[in-house]
């Protein structure tokens, strides 16, 4: 019995971490149709921001939940103004430009922090479920991911900003019709997406350590989660993260982490192949 609880926690953690690493990318892609391939590096910057802040004596939760999103949000803002802004509507070009940015940030981080693994200890102790010990930090990640989903949902459905956001998803004209400059909205969206990427990187940093190339481990997973998720920000994110998270953890637990990762990737290929209209079917409808 305890074992099932432990496994359940692991599975939930798997789903939650996918939600966390995909949320920023998902918002940016869902709203302004930009695939930010520097997303992983935004996470990496979030991680370094956290570790630097902690080393400067700041409380670890403040560093993770406030400093990192703020820093990465600002980085995102600069990137949006300097690069992305000129490429709206050119999907492939934004992918290429952000891929370039990702390399740029890796290089920059290497020059600043060195190509060495750094990390901080997880701030939450483990505890026992029956005979089993679980990592307390996993619960923290699950809670943050759940809160994130709730927050996204309530902002989208319940606020004026959400209305504008949903309008923008229909197309820039709609935003203009609502009386807002699309330019401003795009900027705000990119800021929010980047801040979420920073948050994700900050929260994962104590768990898995950090090198300048850490981002590469996340981008592919985030990418496929978002693409497979489809048009509905929250429901899409939740459904594909759940699917991939369960597949990943089930195979990891039954065999090894490598096979778990491979299973996740194979599941993604199969899903995209057999359901190009399924999960994402609504995606195309009424938009072309």
């Amino acid at each position, binding site marked *: 019995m305890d074992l099932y609880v432990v496994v359940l926690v692991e599975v939930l953690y798997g789903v939650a971490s996918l939600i966390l690493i995909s949320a920023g990318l998902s918002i940016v892609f869902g709203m302004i149709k930009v695939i930010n391939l520097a997303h992983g590096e935004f996470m990496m910057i979030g991680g370094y921001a956290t570790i630097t802040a902690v080393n400067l004596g700041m409380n670890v939760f403040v560093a993770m939940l406030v400093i990192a999103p703020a820093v990465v949000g600002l980085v995102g803002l600069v990137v949006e103004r300097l690069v992305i802004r000129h490429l709206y509507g050119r999907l492939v070009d934004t992918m290429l430009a952000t891929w370039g940015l990702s390399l740029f940030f890796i290089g920059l981080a290497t020059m600043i922090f060195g190509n060495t693994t750094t990390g901080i200890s997880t701030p939450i102790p483990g505890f026992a479920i029956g005979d089993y*010990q679980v*990592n307390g930090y996993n619960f923290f990640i699950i809670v943050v991911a759940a809160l994130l989903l709730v927050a996204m949902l309530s902002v989208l459905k319940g606020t004026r900003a959400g209305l504008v956001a949903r309008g923008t998803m229909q197309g820039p004209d709609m935003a203009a019709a609502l009386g807002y400059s699309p330019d401003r909205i795009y900027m705000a969206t990119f800021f929010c997406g980047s801040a979420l990427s920073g948050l994700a990187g900050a929260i994962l940093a104590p768990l898995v350590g950090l090198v300048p190339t850490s981002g590469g481990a996340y981008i592919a997973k985030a990418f496929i989660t978002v693409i497979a998720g489809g048009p509905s920000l929250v429901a899409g994110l939740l459904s594909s993260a759940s699917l991939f998270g369960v597949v990943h*953890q089930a195979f990891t637990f039954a065999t090894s982490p490598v096979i*778990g990762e491979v299973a996740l990737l194979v599941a993604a290929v199969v899903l995209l192949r057999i359901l190009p209209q399924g999960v994402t079917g609504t995606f195309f409808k009424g938009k072309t």
Partner: protein
Amino acid sequence: MSLNRRNILTGAAAAASVGMLPRVAMGADSVKLGSILDTSGIFDAYGTPMDMAMRLAVNEINAAGGLLGRQVEVVAYDTQSDMALYTQYGQRLTRQDQVDVVHGGILSASREAIRQTMRKTRTLYFYNVLYEGGVCDRNIFINGVTPAQQVEALVPYAMGKSGKAVYILAADYNYGQITARWIQKFVADNGGHAVGVDFFPLDVSDFGSTIAKIQTVGPDLVIAPLVGGAHLSFFRQWAAAGMKDRIPLASTTMGVGNEHKVLTPEEGNGIMVAYNYSQELDTPANNAFKERWSAAYGDSSLIHEIAVSNYQGVMTWAEAVRQAGSLDREAVIASLEAGLSIDGPAGTVTVDPKTHHAVLDVHIMEIEDQGMRVIETLPQRQPIDTQAVCDLQANPDDNTQYEIQI
């Protein structure tokens, strides 16, 4: 730091930039020492101190008048933790730079990538890292500890403190694969059994489900030959899950790159290891070495097991050249095979003529407050694992890495 650079430091340029080597003219008559290490990338925690140790050794040799009256010149390449770069730079060292000796290689993967190139081009090669054992090749000299020197000592100690059911978590490449089999053998020899063996590619950093899985098996002891920065997360997550007080940990690699200084005391304390060197060795040789290191680099905190191995390797080669009175490969091999011995920071290191491995001291230790506390010292252990299969005196043409069969 000027040492932590991924470029090619050659000749006078290197001397000028490092600012350590005496600025003497190094022309065609200098002795060329080739070095090939990962001083950047995910293995730089291993490689950078090794590079520093090598330069320290060369500096000391040159300060003492060089070799055969000539200065030693370092030709170093940074392989950036990319195995593919080893063959490229290995070829450049041997074919283009035509160095007199090559010291280097960190992961066993990197050693195997260049070993044949060294052999083909008849370039004497020193691999100064603890490893899985079994390499039998007349062109290579190895002074790191092998499983028979390390695992054989560590396993009974760790099992004595825990129990008979052992779970093994190993890095997924030749070192981890072969070492895991040695661990299984020694566990069985001591009346225990391996209840699980898992291998992890070097980029795996999330061990959550593995930790859950280990609990379902419920071993008495976990032995973890894990390698590199990503794998360090295991020790963190293990502690974060509160497993440290429930199942003891032993490792054949933990601390080799000074990982115990990155972990907090809460995460690291109590992990059992066995090595040839520890900064906490309180011997005159070690204290003097640390002082010389501090004089060169400011402080001695970066010294680790394989940095010392690399230092001892360079010193062993230098001594052999002195005794041979020549840089000729055959002459140097002959003086090494005469059972040459040096006294290094980690004690006496003697070349084993049969295997070209080393006879050396091994210390069983526990991590304590970011240091390694010596529990027991086992003097002058022989590499009996390799000795059992390799005899270069009888078969000088042997060119195999023997692997343990289970």
